[in-house]
């Protein structure tokens, strides 16, 4: 993939991506790029395809047509001799191991302790030994404020604590790209702030590329440089959060924002 005008290879590039579930088309030919280190928030009504975009990048869904490139390399399919060819699983995993995802429902491994959750992938995907992985995991637990919970099982933690562990687990893989899929939607209101604060810190201290799906508009404003408004699988408008939130050009966006901000 040739570099863009900015001279930089995009962290993520969607090229004519289509996604259908049965006869329901979610994405109908989507094009966009995300630059390395950029933080982009996807907003829009439910069913507009935001979460699908994250799941496609994480390869939790397979795309119906089109291509996704990550740091200039094809993610799941490449064009070879005019044909769309699926890449072998090993090659796909080599790309996805630098992509982290945090889920709405945390998805921690309940049969493992907190520290085991954090060292599993670094040991068996990155090849760290147990001591290295543990040291790293402890550092991350400290960062998310849960050092005292390392030998607890996830079921003993609050939702907010579980989500912070899940964030630490994703960071333990040294991701270049972090996908945040409505990470506070399943939390009790009083637990949301701790989680968002952790994410703000990460946004400030690292240059990880972030793609964020959230209904927390203040958070989106704080961390992202760009907001993309989706509706029915297309980008309705995009721009700096200050512009989108205060002065949207589309009536649809205005309506959506007033509904969310209420």
């Amino acid at each position, binding site marked *: 993939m040739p570099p863009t005008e900015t001279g930089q290879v995009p962290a993520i590039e969607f090229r004519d991506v289509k996604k259908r579930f049965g006869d329901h088309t979610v994405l109908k030919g989507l094009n966009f790029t995300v630059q390395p280190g950029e933080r982009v928030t996807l907003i829009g009504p439910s069913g507009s395809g935001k979460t699908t975009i994250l799941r496609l990048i*994480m390869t939790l869904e397979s795309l119906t047509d089109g291509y996704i490139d990550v740091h200039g390399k094809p993610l799941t399919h490449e064009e070879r001799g005019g044909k769309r060819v699926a890449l072998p699983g090993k090659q796909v*995993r080599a790309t*996805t191991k630098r992509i982290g995802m945090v889920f709405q429902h945390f*998805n921690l*491994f309940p*049969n493992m302790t907190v520290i085991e959750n954090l060292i*599993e992938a670094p040991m068996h995907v990155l090849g760290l030994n147990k001591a290295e992985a543990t040291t790293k995991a402890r550092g991350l637990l400290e960062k998310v404020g849960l050092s005292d919970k390392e030998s607890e099982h996830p*079921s003993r933690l609050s939702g907010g604590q579980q989500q912070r562990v899940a964030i630490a687990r994703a960071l333990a*893989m040294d991701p270049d790209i972090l996908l945040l899929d409505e990470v506070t939607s399943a939390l009790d209101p009083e637990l949301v702030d701790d989680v968002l604060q952790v994410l703000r810190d990460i946004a400030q201290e690292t240059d990880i590329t972030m793609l964020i799906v959230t209904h927390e508009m203040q958070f989106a404003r704080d961390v992202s440089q760009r907001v993309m408004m989706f509706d029915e699988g297309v980008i309705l408008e995009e721009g700096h959060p200050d512009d989108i939130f205060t002065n949207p050009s589309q009536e649809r966006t205005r309506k959506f924002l007033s509904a969310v901000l209420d």
Partner: protein
Amino acid sequence: MSWWNWQSAADALPLLLKGFGTTLVATLGGTAIAIVLGLLIAVLLRTLPTWIVWLPKLVVAFIRNTPLVVQLVFIYTLFSMNDTLIAISALTVGIVVIGIHYSTYMSESYRAGIDAVPQGQWEAISALSLPPVRSFRSIVLPQALRATVPSLGNYAVAMFKDTPFLMAIYVTELVRTAEQYGGRTFAYTEAFTLAGLIFLAASYPTSLLIRRLEKSLATY
């Protein structure tokens, strides 16, 4: 008391306990085979491509839908007709056949257990790019076993109570011992009563143990 003779009972007991030893060997051996093979079948049915998966499915259905005793006699006869296989003891044949028979049931328990692992777990595995074999061993199987272990235990107890079928291929397990003792002394009542009590003494505590295991597995 003419229907019960304490002397006969006392005479029968050591013989019966020896027969019970064979019953235990058959149960433990059969369970070991069924636990391993059952998991293997469950994994095979999950991972094989569709063009070939019908074959193990057919075999499993065949074994499940024919009586154990028919399978025992069939395989035993097959073995005794072959000059090299005839050296294999009836007990060994019995253990393998009963193990295979029950593995087809246990594979179903494993399948249900694996299916019970929430979608989110698979997604987390995928998001961490964990390799399939490792994640199966460290995440999927431990979670699946919570739902599976109690039912595996129940099948082991059921197998224990099915071991008298080994009589059909002349394995002198507990019930055949009772039968032989009764035939020799006409003390059928004593022999079979004791045999039943021995079964009860072994399987009841085991099922209590399984229930306790079930409870302890219910929490992480």
